């Protein structure tokens, strides 16, 4: 069976190559910082499952030390100029889209084929990760097609990948770090304390205000945690279930489903949701790391208001 572990090995290979090419890149004054950072990630992907929790923790602290001390540089491996790219884009024409589309199409068509035909019973892929595994397969197919069709220098995919990776830099592991912070918060009982505070300010006999505190609490707590999944169990336990469902007799399906979506409005407004808000700013090379959040606030706030009204009118 093809499991998530296979993808980790693929990612490990990619990061090993990024690390090696970084180490030999004399044009980058901080080349050893980059080599160490991507190398540690390669170790995490290859061996993370075999290392002890403490060893993984030390690995994370090393990553943080490299990033925190400013030891990561940005490489600029040789590539084509803008003029050359305009010429190449003319020469290859719209066929250039095909390899780019191989990745999503493999994931899309593959998932549908796998889930709705006999392939599904074959147990070829690990159930929970079908689309992600197919995405990885799509990457390999697209890479082979590009190498045969475009005939770039052999190391070009590594160098171009490294250029993009370096432009993202430490932000590449921030989402994973935040998920880890969430686990520590849970262990220390942060959720219960916040839930206690929110539950303590609910007035008697006002369904609307209880709904308001529930939805705003979901959004705010999601902004703090960067993740609605961490906020939901807390707010459901503190307000959603005891007040809205039990005391006021609201419909639990509405309160659950739309409560979660109120949390998603918070996700749009916080740098803590790094993979959605900070990483794309780096990926698009925006000047402000808050350039994505800035464009989302005016959608998030009215949508949060809609969610509050939807819970109030649909659940009661």
């Amino acid at each position: 069976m093809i499991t998530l572990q296979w993808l980790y090995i693929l990612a490990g290979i990619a990061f090993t190559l990024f690390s090696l090419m970084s180490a030999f890149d004399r044009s980058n004054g901080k080349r050893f910082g980059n080599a160490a950072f991507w190398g540690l990630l390669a170790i995490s992907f290859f061996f993370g499952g075999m290392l002890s929790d403490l060893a993984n923790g030390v690995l994370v602290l090393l990553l943080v030390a490299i990033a925190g001390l400013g030891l990561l540089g940005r490489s600029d491996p040789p590539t084509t100029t803008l003029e050359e790219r305009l010429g190449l884009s003319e020469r290859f024409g719209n066929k250039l889209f095909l390899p780019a589309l191989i990745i999503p199409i493999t994931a899309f068509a593959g998932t549908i084929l796998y889930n709705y035909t006999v392939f599904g019973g074959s147990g070829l892929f690990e159930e929970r990760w079908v689309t992600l595994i197919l995405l990885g397969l799509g990457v390999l197919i697209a890479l082979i097609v590009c190498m045969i069709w475009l005939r770039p220098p052999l190391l070009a995919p590594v160098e171009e990948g490294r250029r993009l990776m370096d432009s993202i830099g430490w932000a590449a592991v921030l989402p994973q770090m935040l998920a880890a912070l969430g686990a520590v918060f849970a262990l220390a009982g942060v959720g219960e304390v916040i839930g206690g505070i929110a539950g303590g300010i609910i007035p008697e006999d006002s369904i609307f205000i209880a709904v308001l505190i529930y939805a705003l609490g979901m959004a705010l707590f999601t902004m703090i945690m960067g993740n609605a999944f961490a906020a939901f169990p807390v707010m459901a336990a503190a307000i959603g279930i005891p007040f809205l469902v039990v005391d006021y007799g609201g419909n639990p399906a509405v309160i659950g489903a739309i409560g979660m979506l109120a949390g998603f409005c918070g996700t749009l407004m916080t740098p803590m949701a790094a993979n959605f808000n900070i990483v794309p700013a780096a990926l698009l090379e925006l000047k402000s790391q808050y350039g994505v959040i800035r464009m989302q606030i005016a959608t998030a706030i009215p949508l949060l208001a809609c969610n509050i009204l939807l819970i109030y009118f649909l659940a009661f």
Partner: protein
Amino acid sequence: MPDYLVLSGILVVVVGFALKLNPLLVVTLAALATGLLGKLGLVEVISAFGAAFNDNRYISVVWIVLPVIGLLERYGLQQRARAVIETIRGATMGRLLLLYLLFRQVTAALGLTSVAGHAQTVRPLVAPMAEAAAEKTHGDLEEDEREQVLGMSAATDNVGLFFGEDIFVAIASILLIQGVFQSYGYELTPLQLSVWAIPTAICAFFIHGSRLLMFDRKLRRPGK
């Protein structure tokens, strides 16, 4: 008496982000502060942090697309994306992103959340197309306008994903809601929950969609 000291980690996060310290450092300090004040040992905190980091490696697997995207960019993919938009009559940034919003919501609602994304589609295709479309109707963009167009491209991907995916019955958040309610004795089916994601999805489409079209009009305003 609840132990309010465990909230110190949140304070570290807020202050750290406000001071623009390196976010990795801020997050680590917050974890250490929370754990130590929450009466965990140092080794225990570092172990918990490491274990959770390891469990979430799947989040960072997506970077394996970068070599392909980078390679295609070397051969002019972004320039091609722009050229196509320039040939389509009536293509504006707002309409283009509106179409992408719909695509993202519908595919996410079918459970296909990883077919698009910031690395796979926004950087190589959607953002350069949106930029080209904006330049077509508006002329050259000022620095800040360009930032807004690119930011809006990423924002549209997020809105489409968040307010589409919960319509799919087997997505993690639906299963989480089901699990939480089950632990309090409420048996909900995923389908019961996912239908209630539809009203918000419609609101999201209209709110974000009208913002996209208004953004078009704002950019097109002459003489500013």
